[in-house]
């Protein structure tokens, strides 16, 4: 904890030019909004890709009008080719995991609110912060450019298993230029995340204002802090892995390609590499990545729930410890992606154990959220609906982890739609519900206007039911043995599952269309929304103590904020309101959680 006089001086003056104010801005709030904008662009791209994929899975020979404009060779006569399906699928996964699920909950919300919530005027390294966004944006452009070069994007899936990803164009369309662009994009993305993580960690540890001890940090700040530690360690592994992959393409190395491989009757000029090495490096990043996507959502949802339950969580510390336990365990469980990969089968049992254990902190989190609802004064609004929806999705997606944690069951379920259902519910849909909750909750602070609640609620109901209609049947498909990453179902035992695929396609199209309501609300409310009061939710943390919405350039209008209380002083009896702001000097009987 530090004295504010030493640290809270804004390190750069308020810019006046358009470029410095809105484009190459050093202000964490602008950078947060830029990340949100990038995530929005990415999620729309990823969603359109998923529509195309779903249409193709429902009706393989379907003509999708105009598709040939995207790729003449990928969709001759507007009918998608098998390879183009895989290329779109790879781009869908990559865009969603990296540019949406990592970018929005962590980089967008975290950038905007972490400095404010700790009482700082900005992040400690504003130039690194600006760089982290523009590097990430460049990574996005490089990835998207692969649609337009050579024979299109890589088709090797977001997991990019070697040697398919490493031997070059001989392995199939997109495996030459497209592949190098993919690996370059992700390596660049890692740089952005490393710079971002560095800023987040330093902000949390070094920029806290007077009175803001670690235990007085809101759960959002804890979520971002834990995530940034994971980001620093996980992306630091993925980046060199991607560089080695690029070298296998351009420098004739053989990091991930074994000897004596024959493609197209040609013996490949590689020797001595290891196929499994890529998988180990990728999943050492890949599993923490799941938690990089979801832990910020856990923080956001906890933060929004307490404001709407009008009470603190049953235990603030247990939530922090559980999120921390998830982060630590996430590095020890990664091998559960590789049970049948050909690694030593004994390792599978070793990786299985922490995977089963990780259900304990997950269960504790769910029980604390649900237990805190007990005896609360729950307010229902769009933000709290999405937060409650998050819990429901997290439970549904979490229980399927019981199956996938066991090597013996994985023999049947590995690489099936069961896995697809599991990770979509637990990390994608849940995380996106966290993003929606955060958007509805913080919109008044960021824009000074309220989002339309009626449209918000319609958006919630249709999305909640729609997401279940899409992703629950994935589990049934998986149980029936439906292999993932197939562009059509030609196997005798899979043909009977096609009607279920068609149901999912219709649900996906409808649920996707519903997101237009959100988009409309997002833009319409910016200009026509009701003007927001300074603290519309009667919330206690520091973002609601700023003198205006949006907050001024230095966040607190020159005031040195001093923190007097734990973050969630709700349900205070005897005061005129039922809450006390974190920076209020009022003497109160503090609502303390169990230590």
């Amino acid at each position, binding site marked *: 904890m530090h004295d504010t006089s030493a640290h809270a001086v804004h390190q750069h003056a308020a810019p006046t030019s358009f470029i410095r104010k809105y484009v190459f801005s050093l202000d964490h709030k602008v950078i947060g909004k830029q990340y949100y904008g990038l995530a929005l662009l990415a999620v729309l791209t990823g969603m359109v890709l998923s529509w195309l994929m779903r249409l193709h899975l429902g009706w393989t020979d379907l003509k999708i009008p105009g598709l040939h404009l995207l790729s003449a060779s990928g969709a001759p006569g507007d009918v998608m080719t098998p390879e183009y399906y895989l290329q779109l699928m790879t781009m869908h996964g990559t865009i969603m995991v990296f540019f949406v699920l990592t970018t929005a909950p962590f980089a967008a919300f975290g950038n905007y609110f972490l400095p404010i919530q700790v009482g700082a005027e900005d992040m400690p390294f504003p130039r690194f912060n600006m760089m982290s966004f523009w590097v990430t944006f460049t990574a996005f452009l490089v990835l998207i450019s692969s649609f337009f070069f050579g024979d299109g994007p890589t088709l090797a899936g977001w997991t990019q298993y070697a040697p398919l990803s490493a031997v070059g164009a001989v392995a199939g369309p997109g495996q030459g230029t497209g592949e190098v662009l993919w690996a370059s994009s992700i390596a660049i993305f890692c740089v952005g995340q490393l710079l971002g993580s560095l800023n987040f960690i330093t902000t949390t540890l070094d920029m806290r204002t007077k009175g803001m001890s670690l235990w007085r940090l809101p759960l959002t700040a804890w979520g971002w802090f834990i995530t940034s530690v994971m980001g620093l360690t996980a992306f630091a592994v993925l980046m060199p892995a991607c560089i080695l992959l690029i070298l296998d393409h351009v420098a004739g190395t053989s990091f991930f390609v074994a000897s004596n491989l024959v493609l197209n009757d040609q013996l490949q000029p590689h020797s001595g590499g290891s196929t499994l090495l890529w998988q180990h490096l990728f999943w050492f990043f890949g599993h923490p990545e799941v938690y990089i996507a979801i832990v910020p959502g856990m923080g956001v949802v906890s933060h929004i729930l307490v404001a709407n339950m009008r009470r603190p969580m049953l235990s603030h510390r247990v939530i922090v410890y559980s999120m921390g336990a998830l982060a630590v365990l996430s590095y020890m469980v990664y091998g559960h992606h590789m049970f049948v990969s050909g690694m030593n089968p004994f390792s599978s049992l070793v990786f299985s154990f922490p995977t089963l254990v990780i259900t304990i902190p997950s269960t504790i989190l769910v029980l604390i959220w649900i237990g805190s609802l007990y005896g609360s004064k729950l307010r229902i609004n769009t933000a709290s609906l999405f937060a409650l929806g998050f819990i429901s999705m997290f439970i549904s997606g979490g229980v399927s982890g019981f199956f996938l944690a066991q090597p*013996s069951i994985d023999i049947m379920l590995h*690489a099936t739609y069961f896995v697809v259902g599991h990770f979509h519910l637990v990390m994608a849909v849940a995380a996106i519900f966290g993003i929606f909750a955060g958007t509805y909750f913080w919109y008044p602070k960021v824009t000074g206007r309220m989002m339309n609640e009626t449209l918000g609620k319609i958006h919630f109901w249709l999305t909640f039911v729609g997401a279940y209609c899409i992703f629950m049947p994935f589990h049934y498909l998986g149980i029936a043995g439906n292999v993932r990453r197939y562009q059509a179902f030609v196997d005798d035992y899979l043909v009977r599952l096609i009607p279920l695929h068609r149901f999912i396609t219709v649900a996906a199209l409808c649920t996707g269309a519903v997101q237009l309501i959100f988009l409309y609300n997002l833009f319409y409310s910016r200009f026509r929304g009701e003007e927001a009061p300074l603290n519309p939710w009667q919330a206690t943390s520091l973002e609601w103590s700023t003198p205006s919405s949006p907050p001024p350039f230095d966040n607190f209008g020159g005031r040195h904020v001093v923190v007097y209380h734990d973050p969630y002083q709700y349900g205070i009896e005897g005061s005129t309101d039922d809450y006390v702001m974190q920076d209020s000097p009022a003497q109160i009987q503090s609502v303390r959680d169990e230590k």
Partner: protein
Amino acid sequence: MGKILAVTIILIAILSAVPIVMHTWNPPADVSTHGHLIDEQMSETMAEAGIAFLAGQILLAFFIWKFSNVKPGARIKNFPGGAMGLVLAAFLLVGTEVLALGVFGVKAWSQVYFTPPAADAMPVQVQAGQFAFYFRYPGADGKFGPLHPELVNEGTQNLFGLDPDHDPASKDDIVTAEMAIPVNKEVHLLMHSKDVGHSFYVPALRVQQDFVPGLDVSLHFTATKVGKYEIVCTQLCGLGHYNMKAYLEVMSQQDFDSWLKQQAANQ
């Protein structure tokens, strides 16, 4: 609106469970000696995960129903037992549950991976390549000839890269596009990838194992029922991945012997 959300969550939970309880979608019936262990483990897990799923959703819905929009004057109450009670419950209920699942699950895994194949198990080599499986039987000498990757040529149908002119052990090797095995006879499958990663998944046999390019791995199993089953690839291997499949025919020993003789004649 809280009450509507509560009802919706419960309806979704129940409707989601119906196809599971009704066994609407199942994998092909098990025809292996070890598969029942996996199926039992699956059922146990389904019961426990199902209870956790329903209990979690119902509890969430119940509290939303009860505590949304309560009277403004109501006092905040704490859950009986508090956070520590819930932490203990998570450790005791879920901890023991997952520990039990983990311990019992080792049995099925061990049977597949930790027991060596029987001495008289029938060796079959499977080679995966974009986008087909090919199989090799060692012939009368019981020995597989060595592979020469530089000789692989689909045009001349030298799919494995054999050199029978120089390798006596290759002379009687039998290469086929379909896999046939005798019923109730253990098979020792030697898995070789020609190019990229593939997988050998036979849902009816309850086996799935990835091919590792550059590292031959093995698997053993016994089929218990005569019939024709599908072998599919589950590791993304390129544009024809969805169509990479072969059939496994489980035959009586007599039928298998004559099938193999026929295949040998076709070489």
